[in-house]
């Protein structure tokens, strides 16, 4: 993956830049020693690494503003970082950049149950937001599978989803307001505890902008009362097509489960070997979860199981108690780990219209044969958000490149059937060069024009989202301005 050539002038000024940053930050908040900056050399897309010039770990919005002012004045690129769990390389550094990590900004600023929101510093992890309101039976709905580690800052940057967004929506649907620092150090407030914008929807624009428009330091998030209960059922089918048809029928029938998860045979076999969840022997497995009181759950499940039976399932298994429920989710939750045990893998997240599921699954299996790489599919079926895991061997020369080529073909297929490159992980560097397959030059140009407004010198996370060739003149402007 190509990255821009580091700015030699910035590299030469390292000492001065570090000294300036140290002057406005507490002790231990600036990391510039080469051995220590290695800790920030990559995110969860570990195939690509590059230690940054320095990393800074501020604790307040004021400090973030001071950092950005300095970097702005010195012409230093800044790569914002939450917890570094991006699968798309969203937090991958360049050698001339400062990593701005919000990990130490993890406080809860305000909790308001009457108005159903929580205001947090964005370094707080996703799961600990729910943790902060749990004793009052509330929760924060978006639940990316990295929720134990991932930060709200990254969730906002990538507009993260999760297994339960079929019912509760993704980050943008649960974000009420932000405090954001612009590249020149200006602090702005957008939204708050009230709903919707009085003017242009800048909040909607910020969410999912991959840290390219500003650094979000505080967020007002919608919290919800927990449902009285939840219960999953497991449905096993003898083909992907039948499982796909069952999903479509459930949705058409007006039942809206909180989650519909899909696993295919290759994943099932690995997950079973790894987690011993006791899944049935089948081609495709669905986990469907519904919520409510016991009686409500019974009512919904009766309808759902009736639909499933019409598709001749190999097995239907309803959780009788909490232990059953855990077992049903066990294989799904350990699917990525199971794959990681046997191979290196790349996880894509192209999203397709639900009706195209069978066609795309067939296409993926053909590509798997063509490239000679194994693929497992585990995904959020209700919303068509695929997660093909392509397995490869990082120690084998050329295997990563082969895997990337195959990934690109899968994503092009997703676009071809009316879908998109990424449903919840973000573009980062991983899908940057494929943007031309989904968008016209003009479509990309108008997005880059938006960045021009917020970050005229293109210093914030500049080498991400847009193909380097498309953004070149703008990034060159950054060098000239410096």
């Amino acid at each position, binding site marked *: 993956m190509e990255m821009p050539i580091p700015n030699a002038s910035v590299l030469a000024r390292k000492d001065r830049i570090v000294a300036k940053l140290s002057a406005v930050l507490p002790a231990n908040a600036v990391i510039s020693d080469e051995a220590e900056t290695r800790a920030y050399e990559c995110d969860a897309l570990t195939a690509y690494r590059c230690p940054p010039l320095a990393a800074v770990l501020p604790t307040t919005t004021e400090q973030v503003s001071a950092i950005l002012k300095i970097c702005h004045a010195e012409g230093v690129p800044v790569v914002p970082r939450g917890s570094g769990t991006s699968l798309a390389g969203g937090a991958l550094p360049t050698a001339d950049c400062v990593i701005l990590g919000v990990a130490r900004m993890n406080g809860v600023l305000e909790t308001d149950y009457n108005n159903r929101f929580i205001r947090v510093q964005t370094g707080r992890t996703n799961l600990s937001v729910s943790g902060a309101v749990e004793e009052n039976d509330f929760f924060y709905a978006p639940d990316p599978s990295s929720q134990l580690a991932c930060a709200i800052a990254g969730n906002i940057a990538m507009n993260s989803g999760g297994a339960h967004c079929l019912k509760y929506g993704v980050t943008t649907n649960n974000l009420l307001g932000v405090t954001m620092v612009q590249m020149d150090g200006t602090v702005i407030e957008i939204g708050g505890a009230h*709903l919707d914008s009085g003017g*242009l929807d800048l909040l909607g624009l910020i969410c*999912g902008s991959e840290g390219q428009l500003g650094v979000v330091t505080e967020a007002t998030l919608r919290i919800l009362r927990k449902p009285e209960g939840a219960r999953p059922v497991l449905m096993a089918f003898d083909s992907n097509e039948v499982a796909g048809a069952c999903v479509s029928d459930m949705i058409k029938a007006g039942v809206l489960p909180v989650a519909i998860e899909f696993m295919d045979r290759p994943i099932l076999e690995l997950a079973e070997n790894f987690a011993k969840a006791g899944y049935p022997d089948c081609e495709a497995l669905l986990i469907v979860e519904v919520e409510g009181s016991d009686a409500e759950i019974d*009512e919904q499940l009766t309808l759902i199981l009736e639909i499933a039976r019409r598709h001749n399932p190999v097995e239907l298994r309803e959780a009788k108690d909490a232990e059953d429920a855990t077992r049903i989710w066990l294989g799904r939750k350990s699917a990525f780990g199971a794959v990681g045990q046997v191979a290196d893998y790349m996880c894509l997240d192209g999203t397709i219209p639900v009706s195209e599921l069978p066609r795309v699954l067939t296409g993926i299996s053909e590509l798997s044969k063509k490239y000679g790489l194994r693929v497992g599919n585990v995904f959020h079926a209700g919303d068509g958000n695929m997660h093909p895991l392509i397995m490869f061997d990082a120690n084998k020369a050329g295997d990563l490149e082969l895997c990337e080529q195959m990934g690109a073909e899968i994503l092009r297929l997703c676009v071809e059937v009316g879908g998109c490159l*990424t449903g919840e992980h973000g573009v980062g560097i991983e*899908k940057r060069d494929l943007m031309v397959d989904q968008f016209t030059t003009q479509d990309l140009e108008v997005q880059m024009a938006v960045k021009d407004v917020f970050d005229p010198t293109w210093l914030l996370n500049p080498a991400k989202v847009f193909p380097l060739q498309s953004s070149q003149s703008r990034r060159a402007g950054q060098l000239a301005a410096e």
Partner: protein
Amino acid sequence: MTILTPKTEAELAEVIAGTQGPICVRGGGTRPGGHVEAETVLQTAALSGITLYEPGALTLVVQAGTPLQDIEKQLTDEKQRLAFEPIDYRGLMGTSGQSTIGGVMATNTSGPRRIQAGAARDFALGVRFVDGTGTVLKNGGRVMKNVTGYDLVKLLCGSWGTLGVLSEVSLKVQPIPDTSACILINGLTNQQAVDAMSKALGSPFEVTGAAHAPEGVDGHPVTMLRIEGFEKSVSYRAAQLKDLFGAYDVSIETTPEKLSAGWKWVRDVELMHGLSGDVWRISCKPSDGPELAARLKADKTLFDWGGGLIWALLPERTDARARLGEFAGHATRVRGAPLTNIPMFHPEPAALATLSKSLRLKFDPHGYLNPGIMD
């Protein structure tokens, strides 16, 4: 005045590319915004029709000029709906004609269910539009989850045509639940009502509407809590909610006709139909609702969104913002003769106003599209 009615997206692009001055963009003309000084009116009415409807995928792709009524009929036939419950502004605004989906999305118009399901912008999956230079652009798509590039879909929703003219929108639709019920509480003060709505919205019973009318249809205060779903579930939750407010005068309404009429009354602000005066719409933190209503001293008041939305009828030319003073939220002057000293939209903080202005210049460098409509 010239009226242009392009029949295709290509024609729309041609018209905009060839324009020499400001254009007033119009869907059905049912909710005029601020004053637009323009000799040319661009109607989207002929960009009409459903491009794609997949009930099994909850997806609808539709031309921007399609009448809302046609869309709702098509959806109802499949037992589906637009969950954000768009307002029919005609009665309140004294306008006629057909509201279009493009107009609904461009103004991010959402009704009572906004509090639970989300706003129009939350159901917008993708847009195609023509910017101020006549360039055809797209963003988003027709899938439920999409983080490919910046989310210009949200930015276009609520931009009142100032960034581009929508030619096509993709929407997420929702199944219509089997049944519905409304918990009615009589005689509450504004404060009691907002407290009660907050309690209901903070319960696990999935309230999909929470409104309070200090003067209901019969002139007495009434608080309404809506629940929807499968039959047994609705009766269970209705009973639970009724118990929650056991100390008050509570009843449960289940007659479908009465329910739909009641929520239409709230949605379309029927309380203020046919009355003279200016209409204001205030979005605030729900618990601030009673205090803000007290400051407004309005002739008529209606609370929606659990207290987070206040509709207020005030004497003509009253500056509601002056009465409200500093508060967290925004006040829009929805109906009233154009006044230079009292803009329709809430003035933004300087930094945000600068960003919005710069964004408009990127999308519409000549300032041709609905200039001044959001001032």
